C-alpha cells in the first residue's frame, strides 16, 4: 500500500517532551520542532501523547473456526481502535493452530486485513489436548516464524510434557506461555474462591490452583534453562512466586490483563456473565498486588486476553456462560485508570509494558521500537484528557462482551499508524483495504 506522508504536530512523547513527527515511507522520517512536509496530511496532536504502537501478546482472534465471535479482520480493527499495531493470535482456533499450515493461514489473513501485524502463537500440544507435542519446529520454521507457544485456555498440566516443551523450544529461542491452572483444583470452577463464592453458591477457583503451577513451572524453567512466560497472572501469591523466581535469575516473564488490574470479584454478585472470565476476577488485595508488581517490574507486561463471544454465550445463567471479555479497545484506558492515574506507571512505563516488552518477549521484529528517526512508523496517539462513558460504539470488533460498558473510562485513542498509514484517525477506524 502506498502511504501518504503524515505530519504529526505538537505531540507529547512518552518522556514528556514535545515534538513534530513526520511519517514517510513506512518509517518515522523526522522528529523535531516546526517541521513541515510537502504533501503530508497534517494531524494536530496538541495535547496528545504518542506511544509506540501497542503490542498485545495475548489476543483471541477466533478465526479460523469461530467467525461468529471474531475474525482476523474484525479483531485487528478492534486492535487498531485500541492503539495496537501488533497482536499475537492465540492458538485455540478450529482447527487448532498446531501446524505450520494453520499459523501461515493466520499470518496471511492478518496481512490481508492490513490493520495490524498478526503474529500467530502455536499450540504446545496437538489439539490443545495436553498429550503430545505439536510440530513446534515446523511452526517456528514456517513463514509465520512462531516463537511463542501456548495451549492457552488449558494448562500444560503434565509436568514431563511441560519440561519437554520448555527444553524443545530452546532450539529456536521460543518461549512457552503457560495458562497456569491446576485442572483438578478447578473442576467446575466459576469464580474466585473465597467468602463471596461461598455465599453466591458458585464453585470456587482457588488462587492456589494458579500459584502451584507457576511454582512448578519456574522450577522446571530453572532446571532446563528455558524461557517461560506466565499468562494472565491474577493473584497476590503468584506475584510472590514470580518475584522469588526472578530474584533467582530464572528466565520468567509475566503478563497481567487490564481487567485484573481494575475489576474485582464483587462484580460476580450480579450473576451478570459479562464478568465471567478465566482466571476469574479476584479480590481487592490481589488487584493491589498485581498493580504493584507491574510497577516494580515483577510483572513485565499488560496483555489483553481479548476474548470475543457472541451475545448468546453471555446472555445466559452464569454456569452456562462462556469465559472471557473483549479488551483490545479498552486496554489503554483501563491501564490509564488503574495504574497511571495513581502514579504507579508513567507514559514511558506504559510504552514498555504495552509495546516494547511484549514485542521483545515474543521476538517480534519491527514492533515495540522506540519512537526515533528510522523506526518503523508504528505508533498511536492518545488523548489522556478525554473521558467517556464506554459504550458499544467504542467497540470495533464483532463482539460486545465488554465488562466496561456503561463505565466511565479516561482517555481515548485518537489515531493509530501501522506501517506508515493510518488505521485510526480522529478517533475512528479507517478503511484500509490493503
Amino acid at each position, binding site marked *: 500500500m502506498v502511504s501518504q506522508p503524515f505530519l504529526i504536530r505538537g505531540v507529547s512523547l512518552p518522556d514528556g517532551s514535545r515534538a513534530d513527527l513526520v511519517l514517510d515511507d513506512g518509517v518515522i522520517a523526522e522528529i523535531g520542532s516546526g517541521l513541515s512536509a510537502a504533501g503530508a496530511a497534517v494531524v494536530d496532536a496538541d495535547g496528545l501523547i504518542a506511544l509506540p504502537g501497542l503490542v498485545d501478546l495475548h489476543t483471541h482472534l477466533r478465526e479460523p473456526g469461530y467467525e461468529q465471535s471474531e475474525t482476523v479482520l474484525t479483531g485487528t480493527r478492534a486492535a487498531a481502535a485500541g492503539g495496537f499495531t501488533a497482536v499475537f493470535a492465540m492458538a485455540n482456533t478450529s482447527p487448532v493452530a498446531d501446524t505450520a499450515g494453520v499459523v501461515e493461514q493466520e499470518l496471511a489473513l492478518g496481512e490481508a486485513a492490513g490493520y495490524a501485524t498478526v503474529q500467530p502463537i502455536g499450540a504446545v500440544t496437538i489439539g490443545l489436548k495436553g498429550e503430545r507435542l505439536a510440530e513446534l519446529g515446523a511452526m517456528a520454521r514456517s513463514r509465520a516464524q512462531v516463537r511463542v507457544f501456548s495451549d492457552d485456555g488449558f494448562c500444560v498440566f503434565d509436568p514431563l510434557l511441560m519440561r519437554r516443551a520448555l527444553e524443545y523450544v530452546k532450539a529456536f529461542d521460543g518461549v512457552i506461555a503457560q495458562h497456569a491452572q491446576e485442572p483438578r483444583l478447578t473442576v467446575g470452577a466459576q469464580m474466585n474462591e473465597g467468602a463471596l463464592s*461461598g*455465599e*453466591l*453458591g*458458585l464453585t470456587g477457583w482457588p488462587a492456589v490452583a494458579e500459584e502451584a503451577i507457576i511454582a512448578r513451572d519456574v522450577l522446571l524453567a530453572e532446571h532446563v534453562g528455558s524461557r517461560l512466560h506466565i499468562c494472565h497472572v491474577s493473584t497476590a501469591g503468584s506475584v510472590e512466586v514470580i518475584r522469588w523466581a526472578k530474584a533467582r535469575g530464572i528466565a520468567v516473564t509475566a503478563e497481567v490483563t487490564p481487567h485484573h488490574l481494575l475489576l474485582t470479584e464483587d462484580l460476580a454478585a*450480579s*450473576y451478570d456473565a459479562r464478568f465471567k472470565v478465566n482466571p476469574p476476577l479476584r479480590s481487592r488485595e490481589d488487584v493491589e498486588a498485581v498493580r504493584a508488581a507491574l510497577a516494580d517490574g515483577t510483572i513485565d507486561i499488560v496483555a489483553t486476553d481479548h476474548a470475543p463471544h457472541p451475545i448468546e454465550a453471555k*446472555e445466559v445463567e*452464569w*454456569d452456562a456462560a462462556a469465559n472471557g471479555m473483549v479488551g483490545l479497545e479498552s486496554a489503554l484506558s483501563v491501564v490509564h485508570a488503574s495504574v497511571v492515574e495513581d502514579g504507579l506507571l508513567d507514559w514511558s512505563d506504559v510504552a514498555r509494558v504495552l509495546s516494547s516488552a511484549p514485542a521483545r518477549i515474543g521476538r517480534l521484529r519491527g514492533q515495540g521500537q522506540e519512537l526515533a528517526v528510522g523506526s518503523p512508523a508504528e505508533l498511536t496517539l492518545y488523548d489522556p484528557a478525554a473521558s467517556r462513558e464506554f459504550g458499544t460504539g467504542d467497540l470495533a470488533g464483532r463482539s460486545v462482551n465488554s465488562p466496561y460498558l456503561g463505565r466511565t473510562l479516561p482517555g481515548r485513542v485518537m489515531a493509530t499508524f501501522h506501517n506508515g498509514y493510518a488505521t485510526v484517525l480522529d478517533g475512528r477506524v479507517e478503511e484500509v483495504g490493503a
Partner: protein
Amino acid sequence: MRHLLSTRDLSRDSAVELLDVAEDMADVQLREVKRLPTLRGKTVVNLFFEDSTRTRISFEAAAKRLSADVITFSAKGSSVSKGESLKDTAQTLAAIGADAVVIRHHASGAPQVLAQSGWIDAGIINAGDGTHEHPTQALLDAFTIRRRLHGAASRGRALDGVRVTIVGDVLHSRVARSNVWLLDTLGAEVSLVAPPTLLPVDTDGWPASVGYDLDDAVDAAPDAIMMLRIQQERMDGGFFPNSREYSRAWGLDPERFARLRPDTIVMHPGPMNRGLEISAAAADSMQSSVLEQVANGVSVRMAALYLLLSGERPSSSEREVA
C-alpha cells in the same frame, strides 16, 4: 414484593409479615374448602430445570389453593432439552402471559438473571438455584420453628434468641444458606456443623458459628437441629471417606438423639437418607417436624405467591368469603 430471590435481601419486617400471611393461609388449610379466590385469573408457571417432585407439588398446591391457573414446565422432554436457552424460555412464558414464575434451576443465580434480564415482566420466585438459595424452604423452616415454640400466638413474632444448629453438607446446600441469612435476620443464633470438606472455604462473614463436632453441638442443647441431606454425588466425590464414617461422625443416630432436650425440634428438608444423616428414631419421633415442614411449605408458598401477585395481606372479608 416484586420477586422472592433470596432471604439475604429480606428485611425482618417483611420476613415476619410473610410468616404472618402464611399463618392466615394455614388457617385456610384447616377448613373443608381449602381454596381462596384471590388469584383467580392469574397464571403461575412452575419452571423446573431440575427434578424436584416435592417442591414442585408444594408450589402447585399453593397456587391452586389461591385459585391461580398453574402451568408446570419441566425441562426434561421440553424445548429446553432440545437446547432452548433460558432467555427464549422466559420470553415464551412472557408471551403466554405468566404473572409469576416459580423457577428451580441447577445454576446458582438463574432466578436473579431472570428477574433482572427484562426478558419477562412476571414476578420471580426462587424455588432453589444451584448451591445458592432456597428461600421458601428457609421460610417454611422458620415458620415451623415459630409455630412449635409459640403455637397460636405466633403472629408478629420473630425468632430472637432461638438456637438453631444446621448439620451436614453446608458447602452445597442452598437450604443452609437461605436459613443462615433468614434465621439471623429473625434474631436466631445459628451454628453450622459439618466435616471441614463440606464447609465453604471462608465463612467468616456468615452470621453463624462453625464447628466440626456434632457431639459438642448436641450437648449444647439447641432449640432446633436441622439435618441436611447428603447427596449421592458427594458420597462419591471424596468429600469424606464413606457413608459409614459420615454417619458415625455427623449422623443424628439414636444415641445422639436421646441426648437432645426432649423439646428440641428435629428438622430435615427432605428427602431423608434414613440411617445416614438421620436415624429412624429421630425422624419418626414426636420431636421430628419433617411432615409439619411439608404441610407448612404449602402455607408459606401460598403467602409468597399472594404477596407477589396481590401485594397485600388478604382482607378479613376475603377470608370470610372463602
